């Protein structure tokens, strides 16, 4: 641990010797952290290292079992999130926490709206202030539209606007960039720099290590709930950082195996869903990993949903192994050998309150049900089998999924679908919000599946992932397929050019 050598300002917010346990799990062990004004501080660590617990302690959601929180050097107890907010601490959580039924303006100013006489809300001032915030962030979002239906990137923007809307002296961002595209990240960093210039302290969490080096001055690494180091970023390499996080050297992040593609497994022809995507045609062969790149909102997820039958398509056709699929029927897609691992694992991929074994068992009910009853033994052994194969870290299979860290939740979703023995696997943002170590495991898994003859369609906004894993890259722009680039020619430039519509198809 390195102290600041210059006699700079005192820390605006500090944690001293914080410990926190949940039942038998010791989430934080004697962790200290100092946040200085005008500094962006990175918090690094694998999933389950205790980052989220640390953030929630700073945000007043959790009360530490021991240790203290110092605000301007004064020991402070936050009795709830409102206390932390009133102290000028803004938190942007990994999963956006918006009110779907309320307008964007109301979401931003919930709890602190401009008031008129008699404590009434000043709706007009709220609207104007929201408009100003949107302008500062450089986005076009109508303050009066409800938050329901916003893309994850837009939801994140609203969260950021919320944090900006009050004089945040401390801004805590838990993976703000996970769902953002390159240009959106650049825009976000502009805002973060502006806040830093103004003297705010920023705590920044990201699994994209390059971002830590790009914007942070110091980095604190956590491992298994304990602080490993706090040091300046200057002079560190990504490998140094990863070693501190995982406690050993990391194997290759993109372990792509060369596979000779077999016959066409998934064939999509002139697929169109009005107003969403148009005339999309492509093939995925057995043994192939095809990357589907594009900006958020380009229609990639929507294509995947239509192919799988969750949404209906208006024209075109989809075939697996040459047999056409029924429009809008996920069950026929499943029995044809199609599996879809959705983007939003919490909302679409998992039943959060159900146990690990039951979640994995859900897709296999057809095989584990005997005489109308679920054969719990079969379900259990099947789930155990896959949980072990994917190295899911859990206490008991009967634990509910929401007790797992993000990376392990993602493994459960994968297990759930792999248990169906798919011929075609569609994965939507398979490693979003997942630490490097788990990320490498997921990549190795995808690669091995392809080698076993599964056709993989991988949607990702993580360009290095696309370039590292895909045999072929399909690029979408505004609902159309604009490019198909073979692995040998795929570079950040060629893919981004097609994704932003700058290149001819």
């Amino acid at each position, binding site marked *: 641990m390195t102290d600041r050598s210059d006699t700079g300002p005192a820390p605006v917010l500090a944690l001293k010797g914080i410990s926190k346990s949940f039942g038998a799990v010791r989430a934080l062990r004697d962790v200290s952290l100092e946040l200085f004004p005008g500094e962006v501080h990175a918090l690094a660590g694998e999933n389950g290292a205790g980052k989220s617990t640390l953030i929630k302690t700073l945000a007043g*959601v959790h009360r530490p079992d021991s240790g203290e929180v110092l605000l301007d050097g004064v020991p402070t107890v936050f009795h*709830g*999130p409102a206390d932390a907010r009133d102290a000028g601490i803004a938190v942007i959580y990994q999963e956006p926490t*918006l*009110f779907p039924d*309320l307008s964007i303006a109301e979401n931003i100013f*919930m709890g602190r709206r401009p008031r008129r006489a008699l404590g009434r809300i000043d709706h007009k001032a709220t609207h104007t202030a929201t408009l100003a915030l949107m*302008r500062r962030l450089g986005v076009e979002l*109508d303050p009066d539209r409800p938050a329901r239906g916003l893309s994850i990137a837009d939801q994140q923007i609203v969260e950021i606007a919320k944090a900006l809307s009050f004089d945040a002296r401390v801004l805590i961002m838990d993976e703000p960039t996970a769902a953002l595209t390159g240009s959106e990240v650049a825009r976000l960093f502009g805002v973060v720099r502006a806040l830093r210039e103004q003297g705010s302290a920023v705590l920044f969490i990201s699994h994209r290590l390059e971002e830590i080096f790009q914007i942070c001055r110091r980095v604190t690494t956590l491992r298994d709930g304990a602080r490993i180091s706090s040091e300046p970023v200057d002079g560190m390499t990504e490998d140094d950082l990863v070693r501190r996080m995982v406690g050993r050297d990391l194997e290759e992040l993109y372990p792509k195996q060369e596979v000779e593609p077999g016959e066409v497994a998934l064939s999509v022809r002139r697929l169109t869903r009005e107003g969403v995507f148009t005339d999309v045609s492509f093939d995925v062969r057995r043994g192939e990993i095809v990357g589907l790149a594009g900006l958020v909102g380009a229609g990639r997820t929507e294509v995947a949903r239509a192919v799988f039958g969750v949404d209906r398509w208006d024209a075109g056709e989809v075939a697996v192994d040459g047999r056409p699929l029924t429009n809008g029927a996920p069950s026929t897609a499943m029995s044809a050998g199609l599996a879809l691992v959705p983007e939003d694992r919490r909302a679409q991929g998992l039943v959060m309150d159900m146990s690990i074994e039951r979640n994995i068992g859900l897709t296999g009910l057809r095989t584990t049900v005997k005489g109308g009853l679920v054969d719990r033994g079969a379900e259990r052994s099947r789930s155990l089998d896959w949980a072990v194969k994917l190295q899911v870290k859990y206490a008991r299979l009967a634990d509910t999924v929401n007790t797992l860290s993000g990376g392990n939740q993602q493994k459960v979703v994968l297990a759930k679908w792999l248990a169906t023995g798919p011929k075609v696997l569609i994965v939507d943002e398979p490693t979003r919000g997942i630490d490097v170590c788990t990320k490498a495991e997921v990549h190795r898994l995808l690669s091995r599946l392809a080698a076993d003859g599964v056709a993989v369609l991988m949607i990702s906004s993580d360009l290095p992932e696309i370039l590292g894993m895909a045999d072929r890259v399909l690029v979408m722009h*505004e609902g159309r397929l604009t490019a198909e680039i073979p692995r040998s020619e795929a570079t950040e430039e060629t893919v981004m050019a097609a994704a932003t519509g700058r290149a001819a198809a």
Partner: protein
Amino acid sequence: MTVTAPENTPVAEVPRSSGTRLVDRVFKMRELAILVVFLAMIVVTRLGNSEFLTEQGIKDLLLNATILVLVAVGQSMVVITRNVDLSVGSTLGISAFAAGSHLQGGGNAVVAVLLAVLTGIGFGLLNGLLVSLGQVPALVVTLGTLYIIRGIDSIWVGSRQIVASGLPDGFIDFGSGGILAVPYLALIALVVLVATAYYLKHFGSGRELYALGSNPEAARLAGIPVRKRILVAYTFCGALAGLAGALYLARFGNVDSGTGTGYELTVVSAVVVGGVVFTGGSGSVYGAALGALLLTSINSVLPALGVSSVWVLAINGVLLILAIAVDRVVALRVATALKKRNARHG
């Protein structure tokens, strides 16, 4: 705060896009639709029976609706927070009896009404505490208090009965009197309705009720005092059930231990027909009041058209299902409209 804008921020006036306007229209349409159905029904009935819309006819319609409107307004507050209060029928009954026994003993009418409201507040608080502290589903908790309150009512009231002749004349006159065709009771309900709607729209704590119904976890993280708000919603709901009890007494003059039995289901129907979404976060008290008016008027319309009143229940049920179906279709349409906007904005 004075952070300077990051470089290269395109400053563009945010247009009120067609998507938003559509959404606005649809949401306003929800209340409008009930109003249209209601008016159509009245017109058709009037054409079929010229004696339907006499001054007394209108007065009866409004009087019958008043009590349901009051309880529905209270219920809406609770439903908006993603909860429900099934005990309102029992609360109404016991409050009415409390007011009645006070009046029979020669008590003051204002005190009697206050007594009814206070009884309602008491049981509302009880519900609120159980739901907010117990972290138990409101449906189950208030089903329990429904029976508890009814039980207390039965033990206390026994076979006694309050009849109009035992009540002061002024109280009964007030219950049936009014300005032209508009009963005093309806005016009271109207004032409560407008005040509640204003509170929900223009006060922070009112909007927070919507917020916590929309996403309870986010509400907690946003520092909204969730328990306090739920407690307030239930207390308010109880208070209105109590007030409705007093008005029931004034209107009918007749209360026994069975008064208000089964009323909670009518109230919940009115609220849902009125477009207050059962999963919380959406809907308005005006909608709920219209829903109440619609359901009550069916009771008057059918006899006027010569249809047997045995049809009333079935028709109420059909309306309920229809309302939910319409909500579902509208929600899907809106979702598509909003998604398309996203696709365009990219």
